[in-house]
């Protein structure tokens, strides 16, 4: 099972335009990353807060709802976050490459 997971992660990394893939656990410690450590830590910390805020917003509007995916499109690239209570899966992609 974990082999499949590894394979998928590798495949994601090789897709067109993908700049980096980060998996951090709930404490902010990176488990898998393809970027350097400082960038990873920065992304993890900032996105963690943003995800919490987004989740809080979603749930405030309807407590039975929950956040499943978060995408931030910026000028240069797109950051996609799949949040969970135990980890954060972050992928940065530049789709126009």
């Amino acid at each position: 099972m974990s082999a499949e997971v590894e394979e998928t992660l590798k495949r994601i990394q090789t897709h067109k335009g993908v700049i980096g893939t980060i998996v951090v656990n709930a404490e902010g410690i990176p488990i898998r990353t393809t970027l350097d450590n400082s960038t990873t830590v920065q992304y993890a910390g900032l996105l963690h807060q943003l995800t919490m805020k987004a989740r809080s917003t979603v749930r405030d509007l309807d407590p039975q709802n929950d956040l499943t995916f978060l995408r931030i499109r910026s000028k240069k690239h797109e950051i996609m976050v799949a949040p969970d209570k135990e980890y954060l899966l972050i992928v940065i992609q530049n789709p126009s490459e």
Partner: protein
Amino acid sequence: MSTTKAKLKKPTLKVTPSSRVMNVSTSGVLRVNHSSTYARSINASVSRKSFSLAADSKILDKSSVQTPKHTVQVFDENGKDVTPQPLYQPDPAAVMSKHSKIFASDTSGGTMSDFYSTAYQTTTNASFAGPFTRSVFGSSTVSRGSQSTMESMNEEIEDPSSKRDVSISLSDVQVRREEVKELIKEEMLDEVVDRYLIESETLWLLHMPAVSVSVDSEEAESVKERNNLYMELCKNRMGNDKYVERSMQTFNGAPKTKEVQCEAITMVDAATTATTWDMYDSFRSAGLGEAALSPDTDKASGPEIVSNHRLDPTRAPERTMSVISTTSIASASSSRIEMEPFVVPSEDEPDPELIMQSEKFQQDLFVMERVILENIYQPKLAAYRQLPTLEDPDIVPKVVPTVVSRREESSLDEESTLTPALERLWSFSCELTSGHNVSSMAWNKRNPDLLAVGYGQFDFKDQKSGLICCWSLKNPTWPERVFTCESGVTTLDFSASNASQLAVGMHDGSIATYNVESREKTPVIDSSDCAHKHTSPVWQVRWIDHERGASGEDKGETLISVSADGRISKWFLRKGLDCIGPVLPQSLKVVGNLSITLTSPCSQGPLYRITWSPFCSDVFLSCSSDWTIQLWRQDLFTPVLGFTSTQSAVYDVMWSPKWATVFGAVNEGRVEIWDLGASILDPTIVSLASPGVKLTSLLFATETDCILVGDSDGQVSVYQLKNLTVGEGTQVDALDDIIGSTLASQL
């Protein structure tokens, strides 16, 4: 019990500790007063035997029964025995049965002397309360039990004893009476019992005797006399020798100052934001918690409840928030949930592994991959689905070419906008499939985005193991499912009734069905055990829907296969696939290569494909390795029309599901789209294959204008038909017209 002595300010009087015993008034409120000696005696009168009695009071109760009456005696100045009698003497027999409520205040009435004086007065007027009375007491109230003791404080000492006896005897009698009553009840429950209502005696709750007396009353005279006497006394006092004024000085205790310093009280500011979801979660978990929570699961529930924060409470920056939310939960749900906000997870080391292996993570990865691919392929997919493609505003446009070339381009553009063409969108391929020959493709009947592709060689030599891949449109880079088979796959079909069932026919004659929903790599059923299985390649499998139950069969689908060994078999799904021998196809919709080759001498090579027109039910096309495509009508033994374009074997032909006059064909080097309404001599669109690659199969997409072309390198390319304008008029008529005109011209 009587070891301790109470200390008093008045040295002359000592309080018997036994009186303390009697103060079993003990409700929880009065427990405080047990420490103060005054209060004890004040609160003496008794006892409500409530069940919330504290332990010490109970002990006192019991001991109260056992203590001796007077161990310490008090004498006043004259040597008189003014030992205060215990205010309550519980009758041993009646201890448990009586309910007298006492409701004494904590510091009821100042000093003991005050109390005694008031009690003194009240006892004179104490009335005898009935056996079952309840009295609510103030500082000067009297209980039933205590009136016996109160009166003991009278000057007439002999009275209390007698009265005590009376009360004792009374209580004895009462006890006996109670016993008798019980016996009666047991025997005759149904008897009519008479109840008599009588007026009880008057209860004196408070009696404050008047200080003044009416002139008319009998006592007036004596009172007046007494008053006069007293006035005389006061007058005589002035110069009398009997009365001497003396001053006294009491010793004042030496004052002492004592400083006390306590630890500084630390103040902590706490704040919380009560969000809607926080309250919702707390409420929900509180409701669940009381039902299912045990101390063992406290730990588990702790992190659950703070799961919104997505963190372990031990984390520093969010610690306060989580603590606060837990305390708010704790306060809200009071008793049961004892949260441990700082639960340290014991599985710290394998944590990353757990994450990686969790289902949720896999799911997230899956979704993430799709999202990424959507970003990449969005324009293509939009074109496929015939949606307008959006331009990404952030993409920098390419450098504009010079004027001259632009003109050329524009003219070319104009041309290309007019001519029908195939535009390549994307292709399904991955390293697994490279090198395999695409032999068949089939759309899923329920999910039109799901495509099954079978890989296998057509000819006998060079047989590799077969492969089946299920591709989703949303991920052209990796198949959703991969199944490997022993021999090359020649044909595939999805079942219509059970949309996840895929039937596969193989080069070695075996047939298998797969369940594409599950992740299993093995077929659900295999025909390898069947005795009647095919011995040569299966050219076609198809699920046929039975509309009428023939010979007692249920409505449903059966699998029919056609093979090169000359048999058409119907398969039953039992433990293994089993078949009934040669079956005449009940509806010729079953593609039978063989049945047609028997009847058509015109085609010279093996037919690769026969396909019925979805619009005209008696028209079909065939393609064969003799470089021709032929249009037949069911009733005619010769083909109506034949199409030849190149000198290469035509591997696949398929009618368009949208236009009756359009069909596509694939030969070794190119894809051709024929529109019979436009021309019956030349294909309308021709698209060349990449060099070195042979195109082997063709599939039209059902809802869009796209075709899929499989080649010998394992790629399935998706092309969009552009600018294909088909003639007016209903399609079927057009086709019929063409056929009709052709036939007419042949005559």
